[in-house]
């Protein structure tokens, strides 16, 4: 650009030959320019690379968690085992005590055609079945007592080692003593697969089971319910309070020291580390108010306090975006100030408020640290019926599984992360739709 202008200047030395161009370091400067731009591209590329790496890791390790190896066995619910007293109508306690693993072992031994006298082979075969078979078969019998004494085909969970083996997650070619499945068991697995009695089916248990120390029987059921309770509490607590506070600060508050102080407070709260909210919850809600530890109620309240600044900031922005002419028109037609706010300004600001709320909720859904402090790292196997019962949360469940050593738990926690990310993506997607669809540009 510079040399072009120089050349075209008509006043510069009309007669003599053009003087040698002054070296103004253009080459060097353009080089620097190109390098600078390349740094920028490299930075963006690095960021995107990290994003891809992270997502790739999670998805490649986690997608298999949605399938679970199961074994179909013709289980004979022998009366002498399920109902030893022969009442024909055993109570729950009897059903609890029955030796279901024996039923499963008999079934798999018969299925594979093993000589029952060969103890070692029978033990190897029985090890293919999850130890959770006790609960599974009990539920089958309890739901239909007429099964006692009959034979029924039941899909039961395979042991997590079998599951990992079938999914090819460990090297089966190493020598026998160094892998968790021996050659005989591999033979059985093949035999069952050829019979169509062993296959990978969709893992509903991931969404319905509570926690368990056995990977194949561990699921997100309790965590999903706990997280749902907490999101409900956050919504019910922080949306009304947040909106009311923003309305006051934006529409009514006089400019004075006190409102300034509130404003500084809110901005600071938005930047307080989340773990500090956990300490607050522990000291105030659990120690002082003696609410039950590891309950969804305490978790929800802590997350509400954490989400409040986000909602207030978003709501204030939405209220600010409503043009003053609306307010003037309402007041001019004789509305009181309250009527002006609640009948005119608030409805117009609603899409913005909801967008901010959903984003705040998404943030709260993924938050882990404060929940660790209020005792949600608890081993909870039963569904929480009320928010006062012990429960856990989706991210906390991921944390607990991430600390387990077994390979199958890595798969489970990656699967749980995928579930969490899908929820977050849906919420953010919904927020974007809401903004695109309903937000007005004035």
């Amino acid at each position: 650009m510079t040399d072009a202008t120089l050349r075209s200047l008509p006043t510069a030395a009309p007669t003599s030959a053009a003087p040698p161009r002054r070296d103004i370091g253009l080459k060097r400067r353009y080089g620097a320019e190109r390098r600078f731009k390349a740094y920028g591209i490299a930075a963006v590329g690095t960021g995107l690379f990290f994003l891809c790496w992270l997502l790739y890791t999670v998805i490649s390790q986690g997608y298999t968690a949605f399938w679970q190896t199961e074994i179909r066995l013709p289980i004979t619910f022998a009366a002498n085992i399920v109902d030893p007293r022969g009442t024909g109508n055993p109570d729950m306690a009897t059903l609890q005590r029955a030796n279901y693993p024996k039923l499963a072992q008999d079934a798999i031994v018969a299925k594979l055609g093993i000589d029952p006298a060969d103890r070692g082979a029978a033990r190897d075969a029985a090890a293919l079945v999850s130890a959770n078979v006790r609960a599974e078969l009990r539920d089958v019998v309890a739901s239909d007592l007429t099964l006692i004494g009959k034979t029924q085909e039941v899909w039961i969970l395979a042991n997590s080692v079998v599951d990992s083996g079938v999914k090819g997650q460990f090297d089966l070619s190493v020598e026998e003593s160094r892998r968790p499945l021996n050659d005989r068991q591999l033979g059985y697995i093949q035999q069952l697969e050829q019979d169509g009695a062993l296959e990978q089916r969709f893992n509903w248990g991931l969404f319905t089971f509570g926690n368990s120390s056995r990977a194949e029987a561990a699921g997100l059921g309790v965590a999903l319910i706990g997280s749902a309770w907490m999101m409900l509490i956050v919504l019910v607590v922080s949306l009304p309070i947040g909106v009311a506070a923003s309305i006051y600060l934006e529409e009514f508050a006089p400019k004075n020291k006190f409102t300034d102080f509130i404003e500084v407070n809110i901005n600071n709260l938005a930047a307080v580390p989340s773990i500090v909210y956990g300490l607050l919850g522990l000291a105030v809600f659990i120690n002082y108010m003696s609410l039950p530890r590891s309950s969804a109620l305490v978790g929800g309240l802590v997350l509400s306090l954490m989400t409040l600044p986000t909602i207030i900031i978003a709501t204030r922005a939405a209220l600010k975006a409503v043009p003053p002419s609306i307010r003037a028109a309402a007041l001019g037609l004789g509305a009181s100030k309250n009527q002006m706010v609640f009948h005119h300004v608030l409805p117009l600001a609603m899409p913005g408020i909801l967008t901010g709320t959903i984003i705040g909720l998404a943030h709260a859904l993924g938050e882990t640290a404060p929940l660790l402090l209020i005792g949600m790292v608890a081993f909870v196997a039963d569904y929480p019926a009320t928010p006062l019962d012990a429960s856990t949360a989706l991210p906390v469940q991921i944390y607990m599984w991430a600390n387990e050593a077994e390979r199958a738990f890595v798969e489970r926690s990656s699967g749980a992360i995928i579930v969490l990310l899908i929820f977050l993506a849906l919420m953010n997607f919904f927020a974007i739709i809401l903004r695109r669809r309903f937000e007005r540009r004035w």
Partner: protein
Amino acid sequence: MSTSAIILAVLAIAIAAYALARRKAAGIAAAETGKLHSMPSYHGAYGLFWAALPALLALCAWLILSPILATQDMRSLYPDDLGPQLSAFPGVADDMTRAIAEGIRRMPDAVRATVHQMPIAELSPLLAGLGVPVASAAQDWMIPAALQRIAFDDWSRLAMTIVVIGLALAGAAFALSRIRLRLTARNRVEAVIRSFLVLASTIAVLTTAGIVFSMLFEAMEFFHMVPITDFLFGTVWDPRFAAAGTNASGQFGLVPLLAGTLYIAFVAMLVAVPIGLFAAVYMAEYANNRVRSVVKPLLEVLAGIPTIVYGFFALITVGPFLRDISADINGLLTGTYGSFIQAQSILTAGLVMGIMLIPFVSSLSDDIITAVPRSLRDGSLGLGATRSETVKRVILPAALPGIVSALLLTMSRAIGETMIVVLAAGIAANITINPFEAMTTVTVKIVSQLTGDLDFTSPQSLVAFALGLTLFAITLILNVVALYIVRKYREQYD
């Protein structure tokens, strides 16, 4: 009545008051000449507030005060000397008595009538059978105290029911009697609504106060047991759990934790600041609209991913990756394949935290860079500067205060980050300058001191609050300084 039944009853009365007041106002408007000052629905709301608010306020006050009074009443039956274990902790005796009372409540009436003659040794197994475990330190005198407690609670609940429902009815009757043509119902209702709004906006202040005071109180208690200088300047962190009866409480030195926190945050900033700043500059100054509209949301996805996911990523992928690659490098250089980077190390935690902070730096800086007015850019370009020279000599200096404050906010985020360091930084409280080793942070120790069994009287649990206070103070200072820099040095271009 149970509390929720009382609340429901009050709400029912309030709704009835709404309907009655509204009808009465409409009736007055029809019967009398003249115009209602407020619309009938405001009269209804007037009735509703009078019925519900005094009653619910009384309910809250009662629920807060009654347990305190009940405990005092119960303590009047305690012997003067509580015994060697309990005299230091009367609160523990209260808890035990309360548990006994709770258990007696669950008993069938026939058994309950004989309770006052039982010694505690006979009562405890009965209570355990009802699902109320009683500590072995329970004393005989707790039984009459527990019975007294039950009597007080029953009386208190009955009185509360009568008072609250009476207040609701009285409020409704009062509001109905006040309704006439010129009643300024709307103004009164709006005043109540406005006071709700004020109340809601003070929640933020209350939260801050709650954070500061709760941590301050617990931390003070900790500093009674461990001198504050030992905490602030101690270089050894070893909170061994004291055996029962001994006074040894372990060493609680903040220095190794703070060093680890700052070191990891520093490594994270080394990763995040160059990448984030260059990305922001590229996006603001070079990228065309199409690229920006794709890349910017993608980078912001990184900000939306929960930190537990980053922690998992560090634990499962990045840590082992760095360990293996260091083994390979070591093998190539020296021939021995030993890894010199531990899987849990400062580098792992810092790198992953840096990745998490990239979108934070880039979107904050992007906003600040785009806020620099067009005219400065055009002026610089018009004088013949290249784009990069414009960025380096004009835009960055103009945006500097904003960027510095953004970096301080990022730093505060890095210091307060928990899940990544819990999973990736390790729990050994070392002091080291080798980034390939493990170091621990303040947040990790808060988590590890407070998960598992809790005892609000032991320094091992209370130290977490002192650590939390430190964390809160550091991040607060960083945030305030960031705000101050922006206010003081920001150029006003309009």
